[in-house]
């Protein structure tokens, strides 16, 4: 049974009020689909009933993020266990994802044994392929050499890459290298030049998905939650009809729609962080034990050919 949210369709045809209201439910598992500029929302349980329906599409994939293997403090003494729970959740999806994106901070301290544990845990994830981009915690001591060697297959430069799947163009970007004092995330000129060339030959009707660790929009610059040169990257994508940006780093879900671009950040599978400005600093946030799994989770993304945007569904571990 579908429910229509009251519309507020502006000039660009995006129903923002409806979208924002829908996002408030996202943490509990809501499917929000933009079809022809109109927002429709479905409770996740309804999606399960329908099974095939309007939103089972041509492609589905999963985003997980910020596993921080090696972290063992109060906010979560066993991040490997919660990662395994997230993997179980992915494996239980009605449609197995075609692939999985890990948007960085695989490890907490870039240690060999941490990368080992992560690789070992992900062996039980039922999917064809996992694509990774590094977080700042993955490149601490060696400029990301070990990360690229083990998790950067096919990537170039500091670990950027692109690939196509079912007519959608995916671009993995690295914005955690060569960070400048007082600055935010950084893509750098070499990567930006590569990106411009990479998308130049694509038709504007090709849906594009960018994934990177640090948000590519200014979520909260005071805490480093943004990327200094993301504007330039997004300028190369202005002509595309559908752009989705998937990020991690902030350990909570947040979404923003700007014209044809949908920005989305994922939960961590390890520990939550405070909302912008709600604490002294963006560090690991200790919550009551029974609340922890409500703040960790995965993101399921579906693409239905002919629709304007990808359908993004966040679900928590509990």
């Amino acid at each position, binding site marked *: 049974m579908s429910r229509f949210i009251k519309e507020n369709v502006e000039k660009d045809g995006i129903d923002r009020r409806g979208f924002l209201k829908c996002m408030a439910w996202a943490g509990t598992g809501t499917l929000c689909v933009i079809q022809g500029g109109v927002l429709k929302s479905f409770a996740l349980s309804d999606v399960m009933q329908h099974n095939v329906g309007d939103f089972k599409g041509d492609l589905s994939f999963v985003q997980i993020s910020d596993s921080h293997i090696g972290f063992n403090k109060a906010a979560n003494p066993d991040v490997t266990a919660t990662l395994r729970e997230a993997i179980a959740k992915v494996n239980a999806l009605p449609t197995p994802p075609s692939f999985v994106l890990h948007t960085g901070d695989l490890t907490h*301290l870039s240690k060999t044994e941490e990368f080992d544990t992560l690789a070992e845990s992900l062996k039980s994830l039922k999917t064809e392929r996992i694509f990774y981009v590094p977080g700042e915690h993955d490149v*601490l001591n060696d400029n990301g050499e070990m990360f690229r060697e083990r998790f950067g297959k096919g990537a170039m430069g500091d670990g950027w890459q692109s690939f196509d799947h079912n007519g959608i163009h995916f671009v993995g970007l690295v914005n955690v290298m060569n960070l400048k004092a007082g600055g935010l995330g950084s893509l750098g000129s070499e990567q930006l030049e590569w990106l411009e060339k990479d998308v130049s030959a694509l038709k504007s009707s090709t849906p594009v998905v960018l994934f990177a660790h640090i948000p590519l929009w200014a979520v909260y610059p005071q805490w480093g939650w943004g990327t200094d040169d993301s504007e330039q990257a997004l300028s190369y994508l202005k002509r595309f009809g559908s752009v989705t940006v998937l990020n991690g780093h902030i350990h909570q879900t947040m979404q923003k729609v700007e014209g044809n671009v949908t920005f989305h950040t994922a939960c961590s599978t390890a520990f939550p962080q405070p909302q912008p400005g709600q604490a002294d*600093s963006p560090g690991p946030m200790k919550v009551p034990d029974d609340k922890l799994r409500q703040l960790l989770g995965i993101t399921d993304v579906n693409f239905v050919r002919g629709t304007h945007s990808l359908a993004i569904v966040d679900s928590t571990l509990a």
Partner: protein
Amino acid sequence: MKKARWILGVALTVLAAFASIAVTQPGVAKAGDQSASVEVKIDNFSFGPASLTVAAGTTVTWTNNDDVPHTVVSDDKVFKSKALDTDDKFSYTFTKPGTYNYFCSVHPKMTAKVLVR
């Protein structure tokens, strides 16, 4: 007699004023502590004190009290720590006078400086 007492009174006041300045001003190593170790605490994604003044020859020791790793990297590449986990320390001895701006390369919004006299 009266004049002597007055001079003594002024002298004591001035001495007290200097003493209180030395005690209350943050991040000033006491004169004569040239080889002493001075502490900078990394807490809540910030360096404390954010501005530290030391005499040349002083060793500064940073300690990470956060649950996430941080680094101590000089803007001018004069010093650079490896990644410091919780309770890890990094020390550097400042021999040349000058201003040393530094930051955490993992969380670059964290900036601070050491002024060496």
